[in-house]
Protein backbone atom coordinates (compact mmCIF):
# COMPACT_ATOMS: atom_id res chain seq x y z
CA UNK A 1 0.00 0.00 0.00
CA UNK A 2 1.35 3.41 -0.93
CA UNK A 3 1.91 5.69 2.01
CA UNK A 4 0.08 8.41 0.09
CA UNK A 5 -3.18 6.49 -0.26
CA UNK A 6 -5.49 7.34 2.62
CA UNK A 7 -6.40 4.36 4.77
CA UNK A 8 -10.23 4.09 4.67
CA UNK A 9 -10.29 3.76 8.45
CA UNK A 10 -8.37 7.01 8.84
CA UNK A 11 -10.78 8.60 6.38
CA UNK A 12 -13.80 7.49 8.42
CA UNK A 13 -12.16 8.72 11.60
CA UNK A 14 -11.44 12.09 10.05
CA UNK A 15 -15.02 12.50 8.89
CA UNK A 16 -16.31 11.60 12.36
CA UNK A 17 -13.73 13.90 13.95
CA UNK A 18 -14.65 16.86 11.79
CA UNK A 19 -18.35 16.15 12.40
CA UNK A 20 -17.85 16.17 16.16
CA UNK A 21 -15.81 19.34 15.91
CA UNK A 22 -18.50 21.13 13.89
CA UNK A 23 -21.11 20.04 16.40
CA UNK A 24 -18.97 21.28 19.28
CA UNK A 25 -18.17 24.53 17.49
CA UNK A 26 -21.90 25.18 17.03
CA UNK A 27 -22.02 24.84 20.83
CA UNK A 28 -24.95 26.71 22.37
CA UNK A 29 -26.86 26.60 19.08
CA UNK A 30 -27.09 22.81 19.44
CA UNK A 31 -26.75 22.05 23.14
CA UNK A 32 -28.69 23.44 26.07
CA UNK A 33 -27.02 25.34 28.90
CA UNK A 34 -26.75 22.30 31.11
CA UNK A 35 -24.86 20.37 28.46
CA UNK A 36 -22.58 23.27 27.60
CA UNK A 37 -21.67 24.32 31.11
CA UNK A 38 -21.70 20.96 32.86
CA UNK A 39 -21.24 18.02 30.53
CA UNK A 40 -19.16 19.37 27.67
CA UNK A 41 -16.94 21.89 29.45
CA UNK A 42 -15.99 19.25 32.00
CA UNK A 43 -15.44 16.69 29.25
CA UNK A 44 -13.07 19.06 27.50
CA UNK A 45 -10.84 19.89 30.44
CA UNK A 46 -10.88 16.46 32.06
CA UNK A 47 -10.13 15.15 28.58
CA UNK A 48 -7.09 17.43 28.44
CA UNK A 49 -5.85 16.02 31.76
CA UNK A 50 -6.61 12.48 30.60
CA UNK A 51 -4.79 13.11 27.34
CA UNK A 52 -1.61 13.88 29.28
CA UNK A 53 -1.90 10.46 30.90
CA UNK A 54 -2.68 8.75 27.60
CA UNK A 55 0.21 10.60 25.92
CA UNK A 56 2.66 9.21 28.48
CA UNK A 57 1.31 5.69 28.09
CA UNK A 58 0.60 5.50 24.37
CA UNK A 59 3.83 7.16 23.27
CA UNK A 60 6.11 6.64 26.26
CA UNK A 61 4.91 3.38 27.83
CA UNK A 62 4.62 5.10 31.23
CA UNK A 63 1.52 5.01 33.42
CA UNK A 64 1.47 8.15 35.51
CA UNK A 65 -0.85 8.61 38.47
CA UNK A 66 0.49 12.13 39.00
CA UNK A 67 -1.54 13.88 36.31
CA UNK A 68 -4.43 14.77 38.62
CA UNK A 69 -1.93 16.07 41.17
CA UNK A 70 -0.20 18.22 38.53
CA UNK A 71 -3.58 19.54 37.47
CA UNK A 72 -4.23 20.39 41.12
CA UNK A 73 -0.82 21.99 41.57
CA UNK A 74 -1.47 24.44 38.76
CA UNK A 75 -4.96 25.11 40.13
CA UNK A 76 -3.58 25.75 43.62
CA UNK A 77 -0.80 27.94 42.28
CA UNK A 78 -3.31 30.05 40.38
CA UNK A 79 -5.63 30.21 43.38
CA UNK A 80 -2.85 31.30 45.71
CA UNK A 81 -1.57 33.94 43.34
CA UNK A 82 -4.77 35.62 42.12
CA UNK A 83 -7.12 35.68 45.09
CA UNK A 84 -7.13 38.77 47.30
CA UNK A 85 -7.56 39.18 51.00
CA UNK A 86 -11.13 40.30 51.57
CA UNK A 87 -11.68 42.42 54.72
CA UNK A 88 -13.42 40.21 57.22
CA UNK A 89 -13.50 37.33 54.75
CA UNK A 90 -12.14 33.86 55.25
CA UNK A 91 -10.24 33.50 52.02
CA UNK A 92 -7.71 30.66 52.14
CA UNK A 93 -4.21 30.45 50.78
CA UNK A 94 -1.57 33.12 50.28
CA UNK A 95 -4.05 35.62 48.77
CA UNK A 96 -1.24 37.34 46.90
CA UNK A 97 -3.63 39.26 44.66
CA UNK A 98 -1.25 39.23 41.72
CA UNK A 99 -2.11 40.19 38.17
CA UNK A 100 -4.21 37.31 36.74
CA UNK A 101 -2.27 37.13 33.47
CA UNK A 102 1.06 36.92 35.28
CA UNK A 103 -0.39 34.35 37.68
CA UNK A 104 -1.74 32.29 34.79
CA UNK A 105 1.67 32.16 33.10
CA UNK A 106 3.48 31.45 36.36
CA UNK A 107 1.07 28.66 37.32
CA UNK A 108 1.66 26.92 33.98
CA UNK A 109 5.44 27.45 34.00
CA UNK A 110 5.94 26.36 37.62
CA UNK A 111 3.76 23.27 37.17
CA UNK A 112 5.77 22.33 34.08
CA UNK A 113 9.01 22.76 36.02
CA UNK A 114 7.68 20.63 38.87
CA UNK A 115 6.73 18.04 36.24
CA UNK A 116 10.29 18.09 34.91
CA UNK A 117 11.67 17.47 38.40
CA UNK A 118 9.12 14.68 39.00
CA UNK A 119 9.98 13.22 35.62
CA UNK A 120 13.72 13.36 36.19
CA UNK A 121 13.37 11.45 39.46
CA UNK A 122 11.07 8.80 37.95
CA UNK A 123 12.76 8.57 34.54
CA UNK A 124 14.94 5.59 35.42
CA UNK A 125 12.03 3.57 36.76
CA UNK A 126 9.69 1.44 34.71
CA UNK A 127 6.38 -0.36 35.03
CA UNK A 128 5.07 -0.81 38.53
CA UNK A 129 7.94 1.20 40.05
CA UNK A 130 7.18 4.18 37.84
CA UNK A 131 3.52 3.87 38.79
CA UNK A 132 4.36 3.79 42.50
CA UNK A 133 6.62 6.83 42.23
CA UNK A 134 3.94 8.85 40.47
CA UNK A 135 1.41 7.70 43.07
CA UNK A 136 3.81 9.06 45.68
CA UNK A 137 3.78 12.43 43.91
CA UNK A 138 -0.02 12.38 43.98
CA UNK A 139 -0.09 11.63 47.70
CA UNK A 140 2.53 14.27 48.47
CA UNK A 141 0.63 16.94 46.53
CA UNK A 142 -2.64 16.00 48.22
CA UNK A 143 -1.19 16.15 51.74
CA UNK A 144 0.88 19.23 51.00
CA UNK A 145 -2.08 21.37 49.98
CA UNK A 146 -4.39 19.72 52.49
CA UNK A 147 -2.14 20.25 55.50
CA UNK A 148 0.04 23.28 54.81
CA UNK A 149 -2.55 25.88 55.71
CA UNK A 150 -0.57 28.76 54.19
CA UNK A 151 -1.14 27.31 50.74
CA UNK A 152 -4.66 26.04 51.19
CA UNK A 153 -5.49 23.71 54.01
CA UNK A 154 -8.48 21.49 54.51
CA UNK A 155 -11.14 23.79 53.04
CA UNK A 156 -11.07 25.09 49.49
CA UNK A 157 -9.57 28.24 48.07
CA UNK A 158 -12.71 29.78 46.63
CA UNK A 159 -13.68 32.55 44.26
CA UNK A 160 -10.70 32.02 41.97
CA UNK A 161 -12.76 32.58 38.84
CA UNK A 162 -13.44 36.15 39.87
CA UNK A 163 -9.86 36.95 38.94
CA UNK A 164 -9.43 36.14 35.28
CA UNK A 165 -7.08 37.89 32.85
CA UNK A 166 -8.53 40.73 30.82
CA UNK A 167 -8.38 38.80 27.56
CA UNK A 168 -10.46 36.04 29.11
CA UNK A 169 -13.06 38.26 30.71
CA UNK A 170 -15.92 37.36 32.98
CA UNK A 171 -16.48 33.59 33.05
CA UNK A 172 -19.06 33.44 35.81
CA UNK A 173 -21.76 35.22 33.85
CA UNK A 174 -20.62 33.81 30.51
CA UNK A 175 -20.23 30.04 30.75
CA UNK A 176 -20.23 29.84 26.92
CA UNK A 177 -16.98 31.73 26.90
CA UNK A 178 -15.33 29.20 29.19
CA UNK A 179 -16.72 26.44 27.00
CA UNK A 180 -15.08 27.90 23.91
CA UNK A 181 -11.81 28.48 25.76
CA UNK A 182 -11.87 24.84 26.85
CA UNK A 183 -12.71 23.71 23.32
CA UNK A 184 -9.89 25.76 21.82
CA UNK A 185 -7.41 24.54 24.41
CA UNK A 186 -8.44 20.90 23.93
CA UNK A 187 -8.11 21.24 20.18
CA UNK A 188 -4.64 22.79 20.50
CA UNK A 189 -3.51 20.07 22.92
CA UNK A 190 -4.83 17.37 20.60
CA UNK A 191 -3.18 18.82 17.49
CA UNK A 192 0.15 19.52 19.20
CA UNK A 193 0.26 16.06 20.79
CA UNK A 194 -0.50 14.35 17.49
CA UNK A 195 2.08 16.53 15.76
CA UNK A 196 4.68 15.79 18.43
CA UNK A 197 4.28 12.06 17.76
CA UNK A 198 5.67 12.55 14.24
CA UNK A 199 8.69 14.64 15.24
CA UNK A 200 12.11 13.16 16.07
CA UNK A 201 11.31 13.65 19.77
CA UNK A 202 7.98 11.83 19.50
CA UNK A 203 9.25 9.01 17.32
CA UNK A 204 12.21 8.33 19.57
CA UNK A 205 9.88 8.41 22.58
CA UNK A 206 7.83 5.67 20.91
CA UNK A 207 11.02 3.73 20.26
CA UNK A 208 11.81 4.00 23.97
CA UNK A 209 8.32 2.75 24.76
CA UNK A 210 8.94 -0.35 22.65
CA UNK A 211 12.49 -1.14 23.80
CA UNK A 212 14.55 1.26 25.92
CA UNK A 213 17.64 -0.99 25.80
CA UNK A 214 17.59 -1.04 22.02
CA UNK A 215 17.20 2.73 21.92
CA UNK A 216 20.20 3.15 24.22
CA UNK A 217 22.31 1.07 21.88
CA UNK A 218 21.10 3.25 19.00
CA UNK A 219 22.60 6.26 20.78
CA UNK A 220 19.64 7.74 22.68
CA UNK A 221 19.65 9.13 26.22
CA UNK A 222 16.55 7.37 27.48
CA UNK A 223 16.05 9.11 30.87
CA UNK A 224 16.28 12.56 29.26
CA UNK A 225 13.56 11.66 26.76
CA UNK A 226 11.34 10.33 29.51
CA UNK A 227 11.91 13.43 31.65
CA UNK A 228 10.97 15.79 28.84
CA UNK A 229 7.89 13.74 27.98
CA UNK A 230 6.82 13.99 31.61
CA UNK A 231 7.43 17.74 31.47
CA UNK A 232 5.19 18.07 28.44
CA UNK A 233 2.49 15.99 30.13
CA UNK A 234 2.75 18.25 33.20
CA UNK A 235 2.32 21.28 30.96
CA UNK A 236 -0.84 19.77 29.47
CA UNK A 237 -2.17 18.84 32.92
CA UNK A 238 -1.51 22.40 34.12
CA UNK A 239 -3.82 23.73 31.39
CA UNK A 240 -6.54 21.37 32.59
CA UNK A 241 -5.97 22.63 36.15
CA UNK A 242 -6.48 26.25 35.10
CA UNK A 243 -9.72 25.35 33.30
CA UNK A 244 -10.87 23.36 36.33
CA UNK A 245 -10.64 26.37 38.66
CA UNK A 246 -12.13 28.72 36.11
CA UNK A 247 -15.05 26.31 35.83
CA UNK A 248 -15.45 25.37 39.49
CA UNK A 249 -14.20 28.62 40.98
CA UNK A 250 -12.46 26.75 43.76
CA UNK A 251 -9.86 24.13 44.47
CA UNK A 252 -9.79 21.77 47.46
CA UNK A 253 -7.65 18.81 48.52
CA UNK A 254 -10.51 16.55 47.41
CA UNK A 255 -9.92 17.64 43.80
CA UNK A 256 -6.50 16.02 43.89
CA UNK A 257 -7.07 13.12 46.28
CA UNK A 258 -6.69 9.45 45.52
CA UNK A 259 -10.34 9.30 44.46
CA UNK A 260 -9.85 12.00 41.82
CA UNK A 261 -6.61 10.33 40.71
CA UNK A 262 -8.41 7.04 40.19
CA UNK A 263 -11.27 8.76 38.37
CA UNK A 264 -8.89 10.21 35.80
CA UNK A 265 -7.35 6.78 35.28
CA UNK A 266 -10.84 5.28 34.88
CA UNK A 267 -11.64 7.88 32.19
CA UNK A 268 -8.48 6.90 30.31
CA UNK A 269 -9.18 3.19 30.55
CA UNK A 270 -12.80 3.60 29.43
CA UNK A 271 -11.75 5.73 26.48
CA UNK A 272 -8.70 3.67 25.64
CA UNK A 273 -5.11 4.13 26.73
CA UNK A 274 -3.65 3.33 23.33
CA UNK A 275 -4.94 6.35 21.46
CA UNK A 276 -5.01 10.01 22.37
CA UNK A 277 -8.64 10.42 21.19
CA UNK A 278 -9.63 7.96 23.91
CA UNK A 279 -8.91 10.62 26.54
CA UNK A 280 -11.86 12.81 25.53
CA UNK A 281 -14.08 9.87 24.68
CA UNK A 282 -13.46 8.40 28.13
CA UNK A 283 -13.97 11.75 29.87
CA UNK A 284 -17.25 12.20 28.01
CA UNK A 285 -18.52 8.71 28.91
CA UNK A 286 -17.49 9.18 32.53
CA UNK A 287 -19.12 12.57 32.94
CA UNK A 288 -22.34 11.56 31.19
CA UNK A 289 -22.59 8.48 33.40
CA UNK A 290 -21.75 10.59 36.44
CA UNK A 291 -24.51 13.08 35.67
CA UNK A 292 -27.28 10.81 34.43
CA UNK A 293 -26.85 7.57 36.29
CA UNK A 294 -26.64 9.02 39.78
CA UNK A 295 -30.31 8.48 40.51
CA UNK A 296 -30.75 5.09 38.86
CA UNK A 297 -31.75 2.48 41.40
CA UNK A 298 -30.17 -0.92 40.91
CA UNK A 299 -31.80 -4.03 42.34
CA UNK A 300 -30.21 -5.27 45.58
CA UNK A 301 -27.30 -2.79 45.66
CA UNK A 302 -29.43 0.31 45.23
CA UNK A 303 -28.47 3.48 43.43
CA UNK A 304 -24.80 4.19 43.22
CA UNK A 305 -22.68 5.96 40.68
CA UNK A 306 -19.60 4.10 41.84
CA UNK A 307 -21.24 0.71 41.43
CA UNK A 308 -22.30 1.49 37.90
CA UNK A 309 -19.06 3.07 36.80
CA UNK A 310 -17.25 0.15 38.45
CA UNK A 311 -19.30 -2.38 36.48
CA UNK A 312 -18.74 -0.49 33.24
CA UNK A 313 -15.04 -0.31 34.01
CA UNK A 314 -14.93 -4.05 34.67
CA UNK A 315 -16.75 -4.86 31.43
CA UNK A 316 -14.47 -2.57 29.42
CA UNK A 317 -11.31 -4.04 30.91
CA UNK A 318 -12.51 -7.58 30.23
CA UNK A 319 -14.01 -7.01 26.79
CA UNK A 320 -11.65 -4.42 25.36
CA UNK A 321 -8.43 -3.60 27.20
CA UNK A 322 -7.98 -0.71 24.77
CA UNK A 323 -11.27 0.85 25.84
CA UNK A 324 -13.93 2.35 23.61
CA UNK A 325 -11.32 3.26 21.00
CA UNK A 326 -10.23 -0.38 21.03
CA UNK A 327 -13.82 -1.49 20.43
CA UNK A 328 -13.94 0.82 17.41
CA UNK A 329 -10.60 -0.55 16.14
CA UNK A 330 -11.90 -4.09 16.43
CA UNK A 331 -15.27 -3.28 14.92
CA UNK A 332 -13.47 -1.83 11.94
CA UNK A 333 -11.33 -4.93 11.68
CA UNK A 334 -14.47 -7.10 11.69
CA UNK A 335 -16.17 -4.97 9.02
CA UNK A 336 -13.01 -5.15 6.96
CA UNK A 337 -12.71 -8.92 7.23
CA UNK A 338 -16.38 -9.23 6.38
CA UNK A 339 -15.73 -7.11 3.30
CA UNK A 340 -12.68 -9.16 2.44
CA UNK A 341 -9.70 -7.03 3.52
CA UNK A 342 -6.80 -8.98 4.92
CA UNK A 343 -4.26 -6.86 6.71
CA UNK A 344 -3.77 -7.40 10.43
CA UNK A 345 -5.03 -4.49 12.46
CA UNK A 346 -2.10 -2.24 13.28
CA UNK A 347 -3.89 0.08 15.67
CA UNK A 348 -2.95 -0.12 19.30
CA UNK A 349 -0.13 -2.56 18.74
CA UNK A 350 2.25 0.06 20.03
CA UNK A 351 0.83 0.60 23.44
CA UNK A 352 -0.09 -3.01 24.07
CA UNK A 353 3.43 -4.08 23.26
CA UNK A 354 5.02 -1.46 25.44
CA UNK A 355 7.52 -3.68 27.08
CA UNK A 356 9.00 -3.34 30.46
CA UNK A 357 12.44 -4.28 29.32
CA UNK A 358 14.72 -4.21 32.29
CA UNK A 359 18.46 -4.15 32.00
CA UNK A 360 18.75 -7.91 32.18
Amino acid at each position, binding site marked *: *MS*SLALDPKVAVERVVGVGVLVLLAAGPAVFNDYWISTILTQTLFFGIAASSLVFLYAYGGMISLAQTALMGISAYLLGNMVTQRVPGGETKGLTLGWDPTLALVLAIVITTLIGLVFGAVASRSLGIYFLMLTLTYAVIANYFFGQVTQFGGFSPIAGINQYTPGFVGDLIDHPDKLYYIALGTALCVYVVTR*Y*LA*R*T*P*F*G*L*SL*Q*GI*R*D*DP*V*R*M*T*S*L*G*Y*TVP*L*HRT*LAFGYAAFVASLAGILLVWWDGQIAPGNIGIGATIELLVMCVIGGLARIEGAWLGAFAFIVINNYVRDVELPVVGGSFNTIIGLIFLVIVLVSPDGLMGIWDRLWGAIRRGGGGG*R*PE*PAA*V*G*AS*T*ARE*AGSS
Partner: protein
Amino acid sequence: MTEAPTPVEHAAPTLRLRGVGRRFGGLVAVRDVDLDVAHGERRAILGPNGAGKTTLFNVIAGDLSVSTGTVELFGRDVTRMPARKRARLGLARTYQQSRMLLGLSVEDSIYLSILGVGDGHLRPVTLPRKDRELRERAREAARRAAIDHKLSELVGNLSHGEHRQVAVAMALASEPKLLMLDEPASGLSRGERQLLTDLLLGLDPEITLVVIEHDMDIALRVAERVTMMHDGRVVVEGTPEEIRANQLVHDLYLGRHHYAADE
Protein backbone atom coordinates in the same frame (compact mmCIF):
# COMPACT_ATOMS: atom_id res chain seq x y z
CA MET B 1 47.63 -22.36 16.66
CA THR B 2 45.52 -23.63 19.51
CA GLU B 3 47.23 -21.12 21.78
CA ALA B 4 46.01 -18.33 19.48
CA PRO B 5 48.59 -15.62 20.02
CA THR B 6 46.99 -12.50 18.57
CA PRO B 7 49.23 -10.54 16.23
CA VAL B 8 49.83 -7.00 17.50
CA GLU B 9 48.95 -4.42 14.89
CA HIS B 10 50.93 -1.24 14.56
CA ALA B 11 47.99 1.03 13.80
CA ALA B 12 45.32 1.06 16.48
CA PRO B 13 42.88 -1.71 15.68
CA THR B 14 39.18 -0.96 15.40
CA LEU B 15 38.50 -3.20 18.35
CA ARG B 16 40.96 -4.30 21.01
CA LEU B 17 40.09 -6.34 24.07
CA ARG B 18 42.63 -7.07 26.80
CA GLY B 19 41.93 -9.54 29.57
CA VAL B 20 38.18 -9.03 29.29
CA GLY B 21 36.10 -11.01 31.76
CA ARG B 22 32.48 -10.89 32.82
CA ARG B 23 30.87 -12.80 35.63
CA PHE B 24 27.24 -13.11 36.67
CA GLY B 25 27.40 -13.98 40.34
CA GLY B 26 29.23 -17.27 40.46
CA LEU B 27 29.03 -17.87 36.72
CA VAL B 28 31.96 -16.72 34.66
CA ALA B 29 30.47 -16.09 31.22
CA VAL B 30 33.59 -14.60 29.65
CA ARG B 31 37.11 -14.95 30.98
CA ASP B 32 40.37 -13.31 30.04
CA VAL B 33 39.61 -12.63 26.38
CA ASP B 34 42.17 -10.82 24.24
CA LEU B 35 40.89 -9.85 20.83
CA ASP B 36 42.15 -7.54 18.09
CA VAL B 37 40.03 -6.77 15.06
CA ALA B 38 41.74 -4.60 12.45
CA HIS B 39 40.14 -1.80 10.46
CA GLY B 40 38.01 -3.21 7.65
CA GLU B 41 38.43 -6.79 8.83
CA ARG B 42 35.63 -9.37 8.66
CA ARG B 43 35.69 -11.45 11.81
CA ALA B 44 33.42 -14.32 12.76
CA ILE B 45 33.02 -15.50 16.32
CA LEU B 46 32.02 -19.14 16.61
CA GLY B 47 31.32 -21.37 19.52
CA PRO B 48 28.69 -23.66 20.97
CA ASN B 49 25.75 -22.32 22.97
CA GLY B 50 26.89 -20.89 26.27
CA ALA B 51 30.39 -20.17 25.02
CA GLY B 52 30.01 -16.50 25.99
CA LYS B 53 29.75 -15.01 22.50
CA THR B 54 26.72 -12.82 23.17
CA THR B 55 28.04 -11.74 26.56
CA LEU B 56 31.24 -10.70 24.81
CA PHE B 57 29.13 -8.72 22.31
CA ASN B 58 27.24 -7.02 25.12
CA VAL B 59 30.50 -6.09 26.80
CA ILE B 60 31.91 -4.65 23.58
CA ALA B 61 28.73 -2.67 22.84
CA GLY B 62 28.48 -1.43 26.43
CA ASP B 63 25.16 -3.10 27.27
CA LEU B 64 27.10 -4.89 30.02
CA SER B 65 30.08 -3.60 31.94
CA VAL B 66 33.25 -5.68 32.19
CA SER B 67 34.23 -7.43 35.40
CA THR B 68 37.88 -7.33 34.40
CA GLY B 69 39.97 -6.04 31.52
CA THR B 70 39.72 -3.18 29.05
CA VAL B 71 37.78 -2.48 25.84
CA GLU B 72 39.21 -0.17 23.19
CA LEU B 73 37.25 1.07 20.18
CA PHE B 74 38.89 2.98 17.34
CA GLY B 75 41.97 3.49 19.51
CA ARG B 76 40.03 4.89 22.50
CA ASP B 77 39.59 3.23 25.85
CA VAL B 78 35.81 2.89 26.18
CA THR B 79 35.73 0.48 29.12
CA ARG B 80 33.64 2.89 31.21
CA MET B 81 31.73 4.50 28.33
CA PRO B 82 27.94 3.96 28.22
CA ALA B 83 26.39 2.10 25.28
CA ARG B 84 24.75 5.17 23.76
CA LYS B 85 28.11 6.95 23.47
CA ARG B 86 29.76 3.92 21.91
CA ALA B 87 26.94 3.91 19.36
CA ARG B 88 27.72 7.51 18.55
CA LEU B 89 31.40 6.63 18.04
CA GLY B 90 30.30 4.40 15.18
CA LEU B 91 29.39 1.04 16.67
CA ALA B 92 26.15 -0.54 15.47
CA ARG B 93 24.86 -3.91 16.55
CA THR B 94 21.97 -6.28 16.16
CA TYR B 95 20.58 -8.52 18.87
CA GLN B 96 20.15 -12.26 18.97
CA GLN B 97 16.67 -12.18 20.45
CA SER B 98 15.33 -9.59 18.14
CA ARG B 99 14.91 -6.37 20.08
CA MET B 100 12.63 -4.61 17.67
CA LEU B 101 10.58 -1.45 17.99
CA LEU B 102 7.34 -3.35 17.48
CA GLY B 103 4.97 -0.39 17.55
CA LEU B 104 6.77 1.57 14.82
CA SER B 105 6.86 1.15 11.07
CA VAL B 106 9.89 -0.30 9.30
CA GLU B 107 10.79 3.11 7.91
CA ASP B 108 10.45 4.82 11.29
CA SER B 109 12.66 2.17 12.92
CA ILE B 110 15.44 2.72 10.41
CA TYR B 111 14.93 6.47 10.62
CA LEU B 112 15.48 6.28 14.39
CA SER B 113 18.65 4.31 13.83
CA ILE B 114 20.04 7.10 11.65
CA LEU B 115 18.81 9.82 13.99
CA GLY B 116 20.39 8.03 16.97
CA VAL B 117 23.97 8.65 15.82
CA GLY B 118 23.15 12.16 14.62
CA ASP B 119 21.91 15.33 16.28
CA GLY B 120 18.44 16.46 17.15
CA HIS B 121 17.13 13.52 19.19
CA LEU B 122 14.93 15.95 21.10
CA ARG B 123 13.80 18.10 18.19
CA PRO B 124 10.09 18.73 18.82
CA VAL B 125 9.39 19.96 15.29
CA THR B 126 9.53 18.35 11.88
CA LEU B 127 11.95 19.92 9.38
CA PRO B 128 10.75 18.83 5.94
CA ARG B 129 14.12 19.07 4.18
CA LYS B 130 16.17 17.45 6.92
CA ASP B 131 13.59 14.72 7.55
CA ARG B 132 13.21 13.96 3.84
CA GLU B 133 16.97 13.44 3.61
CA LEU B 134 16.98 11.16 6.67
CA ARG B 135 14.02 9.20 5.34
CA GLU B 136 15.66 8.81 1.95
CA ARG B 137 18.67 7.31 3.69
CA ALA B 138 16.35 5.04 5.67
CA ARG B 139 14.67 3.80 2.49
CA GLU B 140 18.05 3.25 0.87
CA ALA B 141 19.15 1.07 3.80
CA ALA B 142 15.85 -0.82 3.54
CA ARG B 143 16.55 -1.48 -0.14
CA ARG B 144 20.00 -2.85 0.67
CA ALA B 145 18.49 -5.21 3.24
CA ALA B 146 15.70 -6.08 0.76
CA ILE B 147 12.93 -4.98 3.13
CA ASP B 148 11.86 -1.89 1.19
CA HIS B 149 8.56 -3.47 0.15
CA LYS B 150 7.39 -3.28 3.79
CA LEU B 151 8.39 0.28 4.63
CA SER B 152 5.06 1.40 6.08
CA GLU B 153 4.29 -1.92 7.77
CA LEU B 154 4.43 -2.06 11.56
CA VAL B 155 7.46 -4.03 12.69
CA GLY B 156 5.19 -5.95 15.07
CA ASN B 157 3.36 -7.41 12.05
CA LEU B 158 6.50 -8.81 10.40
CA SER B 159 7.90 -12.33 10.43
CA HIS B 160 11.02 -13.39 12.27
CA GLY B 161 13.09 -13.36 9.10
CA GLU B 162 11.87 -9.88 8.26
CA HIS B 163 12.83 -8.71 11.73
CA ARG B 164 16.40 -9.81 10.98
CA GLN B 165 16.32 -7.84 7.76
CA VAL B 166 15.04 -4.73 9.52
CA ALA B 167 17.73 -5.17 12.19
CA VAL B 168 20.42 -5.34 9.51
CA ALA B 169 18.91 -2.34 7.71
CA MET B 170 18.92 -0.38 10.99
CA ALA B 171 22.55 -1.29 11.62
CA LEU B 172 23.62 -0.37 8.08
CA ALA B 173 21.64 2.86 8.04
CA SER B 174 23.61 4.41 10.85
CA GLU B 175 26.74 4.09 8.65
CA PRO B 176 28.77 2.43 11.36
CA LYS B 177 32.53 1.99 11.42
CA LEU B 178 32.12 -1.23 13.37
CA LEU B 179 29.14 -3.46 12.61
CA MET B 180 28.38 -6.28 15.04
CA LEU B 181 25.76 -8.85 14.06
CA ASP B 182 24.56 -11.43 16.58
CA GLU B 183 23.39 -14.53 14.70
CA PRO B 184 21.94 -12.63 11.76
CA ALA B 185 21.02 -15.83 9.90
CA SER B 186 19.20 -17.68 12.66
CA GLY B 187 15.63 -18.48 11.68
CA LEU B 188 16.13 -17.35 8.09
CA SER B 189 15.04 -19.38 5.10
CA ARG B 190 17.57 -20.64 2.58
CA GLY B 191 16.78 -17.78 0.21
CA GLU B 192 17.03 -15.21 2.98
CA ARG B 193 20.39 -16.65 4.01
CA GLN B 194 21.72 -16.25 0.51
CA LEU B 195 20.51 -12.67 0.50
CA LEU B 196 22.22 -12.01 3.81
CA THR B 197 25.49 -13.61 2.62
CA ASP B 198 25.47 -11.45 -0.51
CA LEU B 199 24.77 -8.37 1.58
CA LEU B 200 27.67 -9.11 3.92
CA LEU B 201 30.05 -9.93 1.07
CA GLY B 202 29.09 -6.67 -0.64
CA LEU B 203 29.60 -4.56 2.48
CA ASP B 204 31.69 -1.39 2.22
CA PRO B 205 35.33 -2.50 2.84
CA GLU B 206 35.75 0.45 5.23
CA ILE B 207 33.25 -1.12 7.63
CA THR B 208 34.71 -3.51 10.16
CA LEU B 209 32.43 -6.49 10.67
CA VAL B 210 32.19 -8.80 13.67
CA VAL B 211 29.59 -11.50 13.35
CA ILE B 212 28.41 -14.27 15.64
CA GLU B 213 27.02 -17.02 13.47
CA HIS B 214 26.05 -20.63 13.93
CA ASP B 215 25.70 -21.22 10.22
CA MET B 216 29.30 -22.32 9.51
CA ASP B 217 28.71 -21.92 5.83
CA ILE B 218 27.89 -18.23 6.08
CA ALA B 219 30.48 -17.57 8.78
CA LEU B 220 33.35 -19.17 6.87
CA ARG B 221 32.39 -17.57 3.57
CA VAL B 222 32.11 -14.07 4.95
CA ALA B 223 34.94 -14.02 7.49
CA GLU B 224 38.64 -13.41 6.91
CA ARG B 225 39.49 -14.53 10.41
CA VAL B 226 37.56 -16.68 12.80
CA THR B 227 37.65 -16.67 16.59
CA MET B 228 36.42 -19.82 18.29
CA MET B 229 35.08 -19.53 21.83
CA HIS B 230 34.33 -22.19 24.38
CA ASP B 231 33.46 -21.86 28.09
CA GLY B 232 33.98 -18.10 27.97
CA ARG B 233 37.48 -18.36 26.53
CA VAL B 234 39.01 -17.92 23.09
CA VAL B 235 40.25 -21.41 22.20
CA VAL B 236 41.20 -21.10 18.53
CA GLU B 237 41.81 -18.24 16.17
CA GLY B 238 42.66 -18.51 12.48
CA THR B 239 41.62 -18.22 8.88
CA PRO B 240 38.50 -20.04 7.69
CA GLU B 241 40.69 -22.73 6.13
CA GLU B 242 42.51 -23.31 9.38
CA ILE B 243 39.23 -23.43 11.24
CA ARG B 244 37.72 -25.86 8.79
CA ALA B 245 40.69 -28.19 9.23
CA ASN B 246 40.84 -27.85 13.00
CA GLN B 247 39.95 -30.95 14.98
CA LEU B 248 38.93 -29.01 18.10
CA VAL B 249 36.36 -27.04 16.12
CA HIS B 250 34.88 -30.29 14.83
CA ASP B 251 34.76 -31.68 18.33
CA LEU B 252 33.10 -28.59 19.75
CA TYR B 253 30.46 -28.38 17.07
CA LEU B 254 29.90 -31.98 16.21
CA GLY B 255 30.84 -34.02 19.24
CA ARG B 256 30.57 -32.04 22.40
CA HIS B 257 30.19 -35.10 24.58
CA HIS B 258 33.25 -36.58 23.02
CA TYR B 259 35.14 -33.37 23.78
CA ALA B 260 33.90 -33.22 27.32
CA ALA B 261 34.98 -36.80 27.91
CA ASP B 262 38.45 -35.96 26.68
CA GLU B 263 38.78 -33.24 29.27
